[in-house]
């Protein structure tokens, strides 16, 4: 790896992590399903040998169900 390549990769990682952070912020603000947040929580609190977090698709459907099918009001006039 050339030093230029490493620098570019570092810059790319930095921008990538900034983008991920922005995307996660936007998801929280608008109440969108936030899989990264779920994974972080799962690995911090529920990780055990032999157990797996749910897939992104399953999580998406669960999150939609929680937001829209429980009867709570999520927006205003």
């Amino acid at each position, binding site marked *: 790896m050339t030093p230029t390549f490493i620098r570019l990769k570092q810059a790319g990682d930095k921008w990538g992590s900034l983008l991920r952070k922005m995307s996660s912020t936007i998801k929280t603000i608008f109440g969108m399903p936030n*899989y990264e947040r779920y994974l972080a929580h799962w690995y911090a609190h529920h990780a055990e040998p032999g157990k797996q977090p749910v897939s992104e698709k399953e999580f998406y459907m669960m999150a939609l169900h929680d937001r829209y099918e429980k*009867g709570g009001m999520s927006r*205003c006039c």
Partner: protein
Amino acid sequence: MRKWLLSILIWAAVSVLGAIGFAVIALSRGETVNSFWLLTAAFCSYAVGYRFYSRFISRKIMGLTDKRATPAEVHNDGKDFVPTNKWVLFGHHFAAIAGAGPLVGPTLAAQMGYLPGTIWIIVGCVLGGAVQDFIILFGSMRRNGKSLGQIAKEEIGPVGGALALIGILAIMVILIAVLAMVVVNALADSPWATFSIFMTMPIAIFMGLYMRFIRPGRVMEGSLIGLVLLFLSLYGGQAVASSATWAPVFTFSKQELALMIIIYGFIASILPVWLLLAPRDYLSSFLKIGTIGVLAVGIVLTLPPLHMPALTKFIDGTGPVFSGDLFPFLFITIACGSISGFHALISSGTTPKMIAKESHAPLIGYGSMLIESAVAIMAMIAACVLTPGVYFAVNSPAAAIGVDVAAAAQTISSWGFSVSPDQLSGLANDIGENSVLSRTGGAPSLAIGMAMIFTGILGGKAFMAFWYHFAILFEAVFILTTVDAGTRVGRFMVQDLLGNIFPKMKRVDWLPGNIIGSAVIAAGWGYFLYQGVVDPLGGIYTLWPMFGISNQMLAAIAFAVGTTIIFKMGKARFAWVTIVPMAWLSAATLTAAWQKLFHADPAIGFLSHAAKLKAALAAQTLPQGVKTVEAAQKMIFNDQVDAAVCAILLIITVAVIIDSLRIWFNILNGKRIPLQEAPYVASKGDAFYDSNIHSA
């Protein structure tokens, strides 16, 4: 010591500046006032209110302490209960409370001039609306995120709780009807707007399929694609409107649009959420925050002068936009943006489950409402940048100004607001519509104001039609999101109520129950919507006051709940914080409801209006603007239904307040009634905060 002195100096300066702002907007007569002074008065008041009043409330009444764990810390489940960075949560809460209400109310209230509405928006918010949102958020936060209905039941009692629930269902039905009415009035006879709104359905369905099957769970990608498609459809709308073949296909009457929206609400309530409702929700959230941001930037950059006088002659209650005197009707016309009872439902929803520390609550509860109030101020500015002649041409029903530009210009000029027929047809041409007359409901008026403000920054006059339809698209998109989501929430409530008789109805995934519940709720608001559409006065004139009354009634209930909590906490000496706004709101709402029922003027009272129609029929004549006897009879029936709804709202408000008074007097007489807070759990403090806070 010096820091302390500096703080005093700064806050004194802010207060003086705010007072100057108020003085300028209140005392100027005859010349135009710059919107800068409105913004100055507003933002200085917000700053002082936030710094001093919210702190007073949190210290003296609530006793907020970071030593006590919030529900997000106690339950921390990664889904509902998520400790969140306070600024992100502030954004979340604001995005949830922001809607069409603060944009429509001030626009209508501008008929009395900019001054009364502006004062009510600022003072009502700082001393009322923000306090309500804050105290309910606090109450819910101390009760594991319970809803307003549950808190009312536990703190006031089963009667108060049940009444509050009926009140919530009533406000939902009227809210959806009036907002749908705004969309109908904005889309009627406008192929450009209708096309771009219709396109949101296939776009949302495509997004839904994309996020479910093509790239499961990738909501940001799906939303970005949807936004691009949305702007393409906005651009395509112009081509549709100018095409001789396609324009008629997307030109609908109000009746047709009303039926389509009712069917849409019904279908959206039945379909799985991933297919239509959730993707539309994302689109509208982005559009909503984006447009409010753009409007704010536009106003700050251009600082437009206001052409509306401080007060118009319509403070006497004879205005064409809504009827009734300044008191009480101004105070129910501007609900959201000043005090909105609906916020109590949001403040006891997702937000209290996400607060990381108790000390964040003032920013989130009180602060978000200040921004909502600022949005209402911007709507007031957008309404007042129109010349009064244009404002009344757009916002008065056809029954008041006639159906052609010559008649409208003559009538409006006779009110003392000079406007020429050429100005009106020229404006219609500029915004790419056939007519600007009688486009009631606030959305077209706001869109014209926004188009004028934006045109000053970007694109010049050639872009005005685009900006106008952008503003219409954004309002219609997020109103329709309230319509579909509200229908769904209403459906759950109906299913829950019917489930007390037929237990199977409670199962929300049972299709027949789903269809029955959706049909009941869609028929409920659909009835009021259709009544508004066929009303010769244009619907908004009748429906908006009912919406205002129901919303402020809910606010009075929320204040009653808040006051009960304060009494039970042993802080009765500070209970004026909620009792004063509650008393004011109750006075305004009950007077308005009473006048809507019994006022002798048929323009105000439902029953006297019905009596007038009956008298006309008895004399073998048809009332003005009514074409058949059946139509007149239907109007009489509608008046009676509206009167009944007003009566129900009135009775519920009075009953909840009486039920709460019973508790307050018991406490004042020394009886101990326990507070139903969740048990105290000590916070792990910064150790927990640093390792669990989701900065994003």
